[in-house]
Every structure is written in C-alpha cells, then in structure tokens.
C-alpha cells in the first residue's frame, strides 16, 4: 500500500510558517510534495516512514516537522530552566551525523531560526558532553551507541523529557543488525519517558516497508489486535532510470576467481573518459588487488585512491576530503562508502565483481550523480563467468525495481542483556514494566516472559544452574521490588563495553624503514590487519596492504611490523567480514536465466557458448530444480551440485553432506564451495551408491540433515566459538578490548574459547549458548537459506552421471586446492611438523 503525496490536497502555506515560505521563495524553490506531506502527517500526530531515492531532499523533509515546530516555540525567558532535547537524529555513521550538521545548519541560519544543532559521537570531547547535559541543544545528532550511553546515565529521564521527534536516517541499514536491536530497545525506552513521542524513518527502497513501519512505532499492546501498529508511509518514486551496462570485454572472461584482472585496461580507459569514477568491490582484499593493478596501468599518473575499513582513519579522512574537493579521478572502495554520504562529483560507478544483491547495486549506483533527476551511469565488471550471469540478473532486477534487503531477524538475547543492564545503570527498574516496554520494540514483540526473566537472571548473577554467584550479583532486587545496580563499578564497566560491534582481534600495521627489521621504531601506522592473517606470515613474506607491497618483519606486542616489500609471491590478506551471500531473489533470477535459453542473447557470446556447451554435454536444470552431476576424474569421484544459494549456505551443506557420505561409506576426502555451486570428492563411486539407493540422492539431500548432523557438527565448529565470543562480549560476560590495555586479543579469544568449552559441557542450555546457536544459524552458517533450499528441491533433484567434468563444473573445480584444508586437519599439520623433526633427526 503506497500513499502517493498529494500536493493539491494540502495548502503548503498553511503548514509552513512564514519564514520558511520566504526562504523557499528566495531560493527560487518550492517545497517538494513529499516534504509537505510528511509535515502534514507529523503535525497530525503520526509517525512516518519516508522512502525516497537519494537526492530527493529526504533529510530536509525529515527535519521539517521539528524545524517548523521549533520556529514557533516561544523563546526561553531568562532564568527559566533549560529545555531538554527536542529532536534526536540517529544515523549509522558518525560521519553522516557530522555531514548533516553542516547541511542542516545552512538553511537554519538562512531562515534565521532560533535553533541549536549539535552532534554527540565518540569523538565529542568530555567537556562538550558535560555541557550538553546541562544545556541541551534543540536538535542532537548522534549514533545508536551514544543513545545507549545516554539512556544508561542517571539523568536520562530529565534529559529526554521534552523530546518530540526521533529521526532515523538510513533506517534500512540500521535495522538489519544487532545494532538495530539495541536501537529498537533504546527507542522503546524513550517511549517510556515520552509516551507521545513521534518517529520519522528515512530509508532507501526496501522489499518489506511494513517491517520498518512496525519498527518505528510501539508494538504494545499486541494482544488480540489483528494488525500491528505501523507508522504511515510516504513513497517517492525512483528518480531517473540509471544507465547501467555490463562490460562486454574483448578479453576472455575467466572461469573462476574474483580479481577481474582481465578487465583492467578497459576499466582504466573508462576512468580516463570520466571526471570522477567510484569503483566498488565486495571485499577489502579485492580492493587492494584492484588498486594495485590500476596503478600498474596508470601511465598518466591519474590521482587514484583507495578507501576501506581496515585503513588508518587519518588516511580515510584524507581520501574523503580529496573526494569532496574533486581532486581525485578514481576511488577504489568497499562498503565503507556505501551509505548516503554525499561527496564530490561522481559521474561513473564501476562495480567490480557481482553486486550480490539488487538493492546493494541500486544503492551503490545511486552514488553517481547525486541528483535525483539525472540518470546515474554505471558499468558492471563480472570477475568470472557465473558473475556474468549474476550481473545480468541484477541488471534486469534493477530495471524491474525489485528490492531484496535482508529480512529482519528476531531480537537477539545478548543485546537484550546489555540493554537490561544499561536500564539498571540509568535508574532502578520494575521487571513487569520493563518487560512490557521491551515488547513494544518490534524485534522483541514476540519475546516470552520466561525468556525475559532468564535474561534478567543472567544480567544479575550469570544465570547459571549452579547458584554460586548470588553474592557477586551485578543487579539486585531490593525490598521495594525494583532492580538496581549493586555497585557503582557495574555502571562504569557497562559504559566501557556498550555497543554491538565486536571486532575480531586485530593488529596495527606499523611501518619501519627497510633493513631496520624488528629494531625499527616510530614509523606510521598504516591500518589494521586481522591477527589470524598475521599469524600465518613468516618474516620476509611479502603482502599487499594499504595499496603497498609490504615485507613482514614480525609481530611485536599488538603490532605487525612491516617494511617496504617487493617481489613476486605477494600474498593478499583475506578478511573474515565483507563476504556477502548472493541474495535469495538474485539467486532465483540466475537460475531462471540458466533455464531459459532465449535470455542468453543478452549475454556475451563466450558465456552463452559456455551454457550451450553445458546443455550439449550435460544438462541445464529447470528454474526450481537442483542439478547434481557426478563424474570420475583422476583416481577420485566427484559430485557437483548447483544450488546457487551463496557460499555460506554451501559450506554448511558441504560439511553436512560429507558427514553423511562418510557414514554411507563413500570415503569422502573433501569439498569446496563457491557462491554458485559445491563440489565433493571421494575415493568411492558416489553415483553407484545413489543408484543402489545407499543412500538415494533424495535421501542424501533430505532436510533431516539439519537435525542431529547439524547439531553434532555445530558443537565442534570453530564458527560457533567465534560467534560465542561476540555474544559474550555484547552480553557483558567478557570485556571489550581497548588500546593500551595489556590484555591482548589472543588472551580474550583463548578465554572465550575456554569459557565456551566449559559452559557447553556443563550447561548446554545456558541462555548465552542459545543466543550463540541462533546467531550462527542465521549468520555464518546461513542455515535458514539452506533449509529453504532443501525443502524447495525435495523431489526435484536431477542427477546426471558423466564420463568427465562438465562445462558448468569448471569454475568450482578450479577452486579445489585454493582453499585451505578443513576441519580436524590441525592434528595432521602437527603430525607433519613432528614427522619432519623425526625425519631430520634420522629417527623416522
């Protein structure tokens, strides 16, 4: 249900105070329909979700209700108490808050409004925060973490008691993570202070606007009401249709890999032809590689810069500044530049690698020509042949306007634990009232009382069956029935650990002069690198980072010491984050394209040829089918399946299939997964097993693998340990790491692992383990995706036995050997090391 703005129905002059009308007039503008519509709804007391493309004047629209109200508010008389915050603006990025301060300050000044606007972020100095508490600004621009901190302060109620509006910018990106859960709980708390509070959500187009509309308003009382409460919706139709093309390369498109190295000369030519080009990639390692390759081709020494999340903040700010000044011709970037920050005059977006989701593509392309009425121009560069299919599908989807933002997930319990402690730090709470308040937050609307009580118990004493910690309780219920913190130290600890972003242990990359080795000191920090990557390096190894080839010297305390490197065997660090699964929608589109040969005309000839060859030598599955091929090769037997559900889901599937094949006696040796397909290889002939129904292919892919097999595997999985660590930090069981603390990340990791082992064997049903399993299923393992797929293909599995490898199998087969060995192989590595010793000592 979309409500189109109807300017004709509203009289803008009635709604807009005189100074605004005058200002618009002076500028030669008129207020846009959706701006007036939003103002009218807000003035009628409604909360509203505004969905609009970039460049539609979203921000000004969002602030219009606040500004008009503040304009007509009587001035504070001398001696009168200072008023609290009137409007709270929350954005996912610090930089965005700062940007808004500048963009909003201008009209406010020009209209001559008596309105104070200030930011409050992690960078705000202590004295300014202090002053903000005493003399609050009218409009406070901040982040979700800062809101959590404000709520946990003893004067929170007074600080927020005059609050009228909360504006959420980029709401679509805020709500899909645990950060969104914490924010939803914070909003519920604000509603507790000010029941009449109105919210305004600003969002890019999303698949399910109703989810966001519910998120914006209180969900109680949910009892018996058929339709849950929702904010109003205003949708602004998309701007000019973007001009997107897929690079039709003269070069051969590779079978596999992600570097798109083949297209470098063509990308470079495109950069030369445009003013400023933004190049998006999916991972930081791709960013490093692309940057390196572009500079190799950069004969004209064009100013080309690199921007990703692991780089030093100072360097990132310099790049952003240069961009704003239009001093750059090209910027290679990852998702750190995804959100709607407006910098410079970008006239071309190049997307290297498949975009993985139609929404993501739309968002990134929106960065070119940040004006609504001009078409954005973009080129997609598929890095391999399957990506050609994916790019084509994404492109079709974008024209269709289809959107596929990930669905919202149920509120996480570790986040709730953090919030409960935060609430107690602010003021004593009544459990019944807090439970009702929490259920008002959309992600927690279905929370059960029993679960909530377990969370409170966890916050108090750890919630263990062995009631050993009563005397160390962090919060206690006192005689008046209220829960309060037992010690001021608890509140201090809480403040240091607030937030839901838990970084994996990282090391600073410290540059020293060449030849100084580990003795070198005092060089600049180039950024951060994940510890586990640094651990695999040997002194003298060369690797790519911050656009430079670096020589690894060694690890000193929390620093990875490097000098100038050179040479051939350069390693590219991989990062655990930044791997997006193919969206469900796009996966379906790709399957559809495979099945329908009439659509191959839109593909480059070499790719269409590849598909025709596959049809001839094997088979192409129908849209809803799952193709499984088997063939011998060397002295092994291979099985390749093509679910197109993304690498995470395929990895989980690979793990589970291998377990089953092991039990069936097929003696599987390993598997490898890509975004599109999965290959398993074994010593025995799997096709023969399927034929003899030991097991049948249908039984092998039966959904019941998600029961015991998954459980058994999960318990030993390192992924679960990693997830547990995150949950334990968010829930406040173990502390976050801070620079300068002597405790190194490894010690935290080790103890989180040890805690996990002990807890798992003694209290497997503990609430934190429950939270961990839920997280892992949704995140790293993508179990839900796998479950959907298995149920979809039941009875629709097509088995094709071949004498040799099929054309479609080439990409995944090329991945074999690139992946590190899996699972219990750690012991094998130790054995090798020990054997080497015996060999050398002549005792073998």
């Amino acid at each position: 249900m979309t409500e189109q703005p109807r300017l004709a129905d509203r009289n803008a002059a009635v709604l807009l105070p005189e100074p605004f009308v005058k200002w618009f007039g002076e500028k030669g503008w008129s207020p846009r329909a959706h701006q007036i519509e939003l103002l009218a709804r807000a003035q009628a007391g409604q909360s509203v979700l505004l969905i609009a493309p970039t460049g539609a004047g979203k921000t000004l629209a969002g602030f219009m209700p606040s500004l008009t109200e503040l304009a007509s508010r009587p001035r504070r008389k001398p001696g009168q108490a200072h008023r609290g915050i009137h409007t709270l603006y929350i954005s996912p990025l610090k930089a965005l808050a700062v940007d808004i301060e500048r963009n909003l300050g201008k009209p406010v000044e020009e209209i001559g409004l008596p309105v104070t606007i200030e930011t409050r972020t992690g960078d705000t100095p202590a004295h300014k925060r202090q002053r903000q508490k005493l003399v609050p600004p009218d409009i406070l621009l901040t982040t979700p973490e800062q809101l959590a901190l404000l709520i946990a302060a003893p004067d929170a109620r007074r600080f927020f008691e005059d609050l009228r509006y909360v504006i959420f910018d980029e709401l679509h990106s805020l709500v899909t993570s645990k950060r969104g859960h914490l924010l939803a709980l914070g909003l519920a708390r604000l509603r507790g202070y000010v029941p009449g509070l109105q919210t305004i959500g600003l969002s890019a187009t999303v698949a399910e606007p109703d989810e966001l509309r519910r998120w914006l308003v209180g969900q109680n009382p949910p009892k018996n009401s058929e339709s849950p409460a929702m904010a109003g919706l205003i949708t602004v139709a998309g701007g000019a249709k973007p001009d997107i093309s897929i690079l039709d390369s003269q070069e051969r498109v590779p079978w596999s890999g992600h570097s798109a190295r083949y297209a470098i000369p063509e990308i470079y030519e495109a950069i030369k032809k445009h003013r400023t080009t933004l190049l998006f990639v999916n991972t930081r390692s791709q960013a490093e590689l692309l940057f390196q390759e572009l500079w190799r081709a950069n004969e004209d020494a064009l100013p080309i810069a690199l921007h990703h999340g692991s780089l030093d903040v100072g360097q990132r700010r310099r790049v952003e500044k240069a961009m704003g000044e239009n001093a750059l011709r090209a910027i290679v970037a990852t998702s750190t530049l995804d959100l709607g920050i407006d910098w410079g005059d970008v006239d071309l977006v190049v997307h290297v690698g498949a975009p993985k989701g139609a929404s993501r593509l739309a968002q990134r392309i929106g960065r070119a020509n940040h004006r609504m009425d001009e078409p954005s121009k973009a080129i997609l560069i598929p890095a391999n042949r399957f990506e050609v299919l994916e790019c084509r599908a994404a492109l079709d989807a974008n024209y269709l306007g289809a959107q596929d933002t990930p669905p919202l997930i149920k509120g996480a319990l570790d986040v709730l634990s953090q919030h409960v402690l935060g609430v107690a730090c602010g003021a004593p709470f009544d459990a019944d009232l807090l439970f009702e308040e929490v259920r008002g937050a959309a992600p927690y609307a279905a929370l059960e009382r029993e679960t909530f009580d377990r969370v409170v118990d966890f916050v108090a004493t750890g919630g263990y069956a062995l009631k050993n910690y009563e005397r160390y309780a962090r919060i206690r219920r006192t005689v008046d029935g209220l829960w309060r913190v037992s010690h001021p130290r608890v509140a201090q600890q809480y403040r240091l650990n607030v937030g839901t972003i838990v970084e994996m242990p990282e090391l600073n990359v410290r540059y020293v002069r060449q030849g100084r080795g580990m003795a070198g000191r005092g060089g600049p920090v180039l950024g951060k690198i994940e510890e586990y990557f640094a651990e695999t390096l040997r002194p003298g190894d060369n690797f790519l980072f911050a656009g430079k080839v670096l020589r690894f010297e060694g690890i000193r305390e929390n620093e990875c010491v490097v000098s100038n490197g050179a040479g051939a065997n350069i390693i590219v660090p991989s990062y655990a984050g930044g791997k997006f699964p193919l969206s469900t929608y796009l996966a379906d589109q790709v399957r559809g394209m495979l099945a329908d040969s009439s659509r191959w005309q839109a593909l480059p000839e070499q790719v269409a040829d590849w598909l025709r060859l596959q049809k001839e030598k094997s088979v192409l599955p129908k849209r809803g089918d799952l193709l499984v091929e088997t063939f011998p090769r060397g002295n092994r037997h291979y099985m390749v399946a093509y679910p197109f559900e993304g690498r995470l889901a395929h990895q989980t599937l690979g793990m589970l299939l291998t377990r089953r094949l092991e039990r069936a006696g097929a003696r599987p040796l390993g598997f490898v997964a890509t975004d599109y397909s999965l290959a398993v290889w074994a010593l025995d002939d799997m096709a023969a097993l399927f034929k003899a129904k030991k097991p049948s292919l249908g039984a092998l892919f039966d959904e019941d693998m998600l029961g015991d097999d998954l459980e058994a595997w999960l318990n030993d999985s390192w992924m679960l340990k990693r997830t547990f660590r995150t949950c334990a930090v968010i829930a406040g069981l173990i502390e976050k790491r801070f620079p300068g603390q002597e405790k190194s990340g490894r010690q935290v990791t080790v103890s989180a692992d040890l805690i996990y082992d002990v807890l798992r064997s003694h209290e497997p049903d503990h609430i934190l383990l429950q939270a961990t399993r839920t997280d892992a299923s949704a995140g790293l393992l993508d179990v839900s995706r796998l479950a959907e797929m298995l149920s979809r293909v039941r009875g629709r599995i097509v088995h094709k036995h071949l004498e040799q490898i099929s054309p479609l199998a080439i990409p995944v087969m090329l991945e074999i050997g690139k992946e590190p060995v899996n699972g219990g192989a750690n012991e094998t590595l130790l054995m090798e090391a020990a054997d080497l010793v015996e060999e050398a000592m002549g005792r073998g």
Partner: protein
Amino acid sequence: MVGIAGERAVCDRRGVLYFPELRLLAVSDLHLEKGSSLARRGALIPPYDTGATLLRLQAVIADYQPAIVISLGDSFHDGGGAERMHQSFRERLEALMAGRDWFWVAGNHDPDAPADLPGETVRELAIGSLLFRHEPSAVRVEGEIAGHLHPCARIVQRGRSVRRRCFAADGGRMIMPAFGAYTGSLNVLDRAYAGLFRRETLMAYMLGAERIFAISHAMLRPG
C-alpha cells in the same frame, strides 16, 4: 618418554607429567576457583571451571594411581579460593587426595597453605635429582621442573597456524603446561622465557587430541 636430568618421565597429552619409577604425578597451575575469583570483580563467567578441572584430574589419577602427587603452584587462583570452593568440589578433591602423599607447592597466586585441606604445603621440593618449584629460577638448575609461565607453542604448516599448550624442555629442565580449565597460555618463544633454556636442545611437546607432538625449536613460531 622424556629425560630430565637422568630421570625418565611420561609427558601425558592431558598436560600432566608422570615418573613411573617414582610413581609420582606432577600437575601445574590448576587455578581452581578462577571463575569465582573473576566473578568477585564483576565478570560472571561460568562457575564450572573447578568442577571441570577436577574431573580431568580425577581421570589422570585414576589412570596412573600415583603414590605421590605434586601440585606445582597456583593450585588456587587466589588465597581465598580454597575457602570459597563449593562443598561438593571440596569432597571430590579430598577423595582424590586420600591414600597418597600430596604436596601443594606454593605459587604466586596462592603463597599460603590452602584452607582446611590436607596435604603438605612446601616452597619447593627435591626428589632425587629433581627439584620441583613453581617459578623457574633465573639461574639454571639442572633437574628443575616448574610451572608458572603456562607455555604454549605455535607452528605454521601449509599456511596455517596451530597453537597448543606444551611442555617445554631441553633435557636439563622442564616447564609444565597449565592444567586449569580457564588458564591462558604464553608462547614459549616470548621474552619471559629468555635465558631459561638451551636453544639448541629445546623441544616443545605440544598437546594433541590423541597424542603428544614433539616439535623442535627450529619449527616454532612466535606469537
């Protein structure tokens, strides 16, 4: 089997050292009640570490049936640990101690005798050519067996890194791995070990799931 100053011992993959001729079992850094020790300061980590550690200790004692047990210091995470210990754990510990000579070597975390527990508390203990103490002495002592440093070792093989707790020994002296469920570890190449071992004969006996892996100094990686 490893030799230390002429005595022969078994490095057990579970992290204990056993001298068959002496029927002596040594275990180091139990850090019992570490969980409750941290809980006192607000980190409510699961209170099951004492139970888990005792369970593992029970298993090795059942296997070897030693006449002598030496707990090589830091048996409790802090001085009040023995007192705080849950009654059921205390009973299990006392059952393990019954019928054996049990020595509590004083550690930096627990310099005094554990409250109300049997066994003899000593600063150090000499048996034959062996000397058992908690902290390794800075001056080299042949036959010294110590704990305190929680050694682990790391190798890199085929681009992958494996880190495990280990016994560190050079034929003359040994540092034992920490046994407690919540104990972290420190790489044997860290500067805290500087000067303790003869580099050329240093071996790390890394604890595997099924067996011990003897790794020579040259294969070890820092970090």
